[in-house]
């Protein structure tokens, strides 16, 4: 069987089911709301595995699932050298969100990354520690800031309610996913005037390290055919 990992709840799951449904592949959950298994019709040999979206990158990397639907942000954050571990087959057109950097609205002297860098330098000189940016996207934010020559900052881990860290004095700025910006406004934060760290959306991935021998490869071909996608290199 080809194991296909999809998000186990919420809008991401509904949208995933819809997306496949529009392409002639029907998915549904088995039994009760609480049971994390499902069925697939329209392509033979595919087993549905319902997982938390955050765990799908790891499962793909380990080859425990053959394919998976999750946010491009999660794959880039959680997998080193992600293109060597997974193939992105297609963007799915939903789950759009930007990973952005935000600072207090009162920072009238900070609009760009250059300003953030200069403010970080002055902050460190004054307070004796590096300017703190709260995020759960350590790899993406670090690579982005390095690329843009920002120094004198540190990342502090925040797995939730990240916008509140500035008010709570545990961070000076934040880097987080935002789809609307309302939470930012409510917490008196503004987005820096620079390209987002990452523009995320839901994508369909295939695992390079999974065992594709035999039936899974046949199912992959049937699935790609149904979705109108070319067979990627290396599969």
């Amino acid at each position, binding site marked *: 069987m080809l194991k296909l990992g999809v998000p186990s709840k919420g809008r991401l799951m509904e949208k995933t089911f819809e997306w496949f449904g529009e392409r002639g592949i029907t998915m549904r959950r088995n039994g009760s709301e609480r049971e994390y298994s499902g069925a697939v019709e329209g392509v033979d040999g595919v087993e549905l595995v319902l997982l938390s979206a955050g765990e799908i990158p790891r499962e793909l990397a380990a080859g425990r699932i053959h394919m998976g639907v999750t946010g491009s942000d999660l794959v880039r954050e959680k997998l*080193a*050298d992600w293109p060597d571990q997974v193939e992105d087959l297609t963007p799915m057109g939903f789950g759009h969100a930007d990973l952005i950097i935000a600072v*207090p609205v*009162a920072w009238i002297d900070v609009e760009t990354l250059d300003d953030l860098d200069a403010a970080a330098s002055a902050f460190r000189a004054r307070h004796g520690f590096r300017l703190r940016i709260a995020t759960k996207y350590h790899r993406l934010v670090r690579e982005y800031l390095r690329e843009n*020559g920002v120094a004198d900052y540190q*990342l502090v881990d925040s797995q939730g309610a990240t916008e509140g860290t500035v008010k709570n004095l545990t961070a*000076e700025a934040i880097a987080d996913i935002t789809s609307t910006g309302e939470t930012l406004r409510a917490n008196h934060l503004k987005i820096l005037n620079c390209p987002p760290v990452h523009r995320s959306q839901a994508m369909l991935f295939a695992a390079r390290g999974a065992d594709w021998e035999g039936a899974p490869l046949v199912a992959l071909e049937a699935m790609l055919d149904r979705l109108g996608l070319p067979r990627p290199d290396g599969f």
Partner: protein
Amino acid sequence: MQPDKVSIQAEAEKLLAQFRAAGATLVEADILQPAETLLDLYGEDIRGRAYVTSDPLRGEMMLRPDFTVPVVQMHMAQGADPARYCYRGEVFRKQEHAGTRPSEFLQVGYEVFDRANASAADAEVFALFTDLLAPLGLRASTGDIGILMAAVQGLGTSAPRKAALMRHIWRPRRFRALLDRFGGRSPVPEARAQMLAQLAAAPVEELLDRAGPFTGLRGPNEIAARVAQLIEDAKTPPIAAGEVDLLDDLLALRDKAPAALECLRDLAVDMPSLGPAVDGFDARLVALDERGVDVGNLDFEASYGRTTLEYYDGFVFGFYCETRPDLPPVASGGRYDALTRVLGQGRSIPAVGGIIRPGIVAMLKGA
């Protein structure tokens, strides 16, 4: 072929014995180092490259990414003056990309803490490394971060602009962008121009009131101070084109050491701030020659060392195997006077040192 650990250990012991014969005291360092000190020194990049773990009592700890920091700390706490140390042991570096670079490898190092004569200490370390590595036929690269710092300090511009350039010596792309902007070669970015217009429109107190509720640790006085600095900076005239050209010539300088010295002397005529640093370079070449280093064939690159960890602030060097460009440097090192000041809590001592990777030495010997 990758040599086995036993032969790498044997190579490390041989190198260590030679460092001890050169007069160094053997020291050890803990593998678990407090993460805070290292993070504060190196910044976020080290978190990406070092293994961070947590200790129930001591908090965040790192598997040591190098020996320099613990050795400096030990010296500043209790060391004799002058002192020479050597060490060998594993260091740990996370690899973000698949490949052959090991995430754990041996280093053998030699560090000199000596106030007497910087050029002589630089030459001592480099000549020792040159002798030890001679059988491998490596190419040595050298540079001098101190010359770059002197050049920046000598620019005819405001102190904040010089400070901004100094901070980014180790980030060449950002340095270039700042220099182009301060030199009037690239226009003021639109976002900056807009912000300046807004900041000029009203007194800063009023602007702060209007911006919305205040939040966070960075205070209104800090914001106001930077606003004043931005307005001041906008009035600062561009760095003269001639000076930017001189700096460009310096950054591009790449030659054998004697020719590089000639060129630096020429540059120092128009950029007098270079004088002492160039004298230091000259004295180092004399000291190297006295130690038997073939100075006439020594490569010098003014920009060398700009992408390493940012604690080097003088002489920098690396030894490379030219037929194996895929390998990291076999050995590297440099002068780090400022680091001793940061870790010395008010005290400091001139220091220079370097490390050899016995794993690569063993590999090249076996090849």
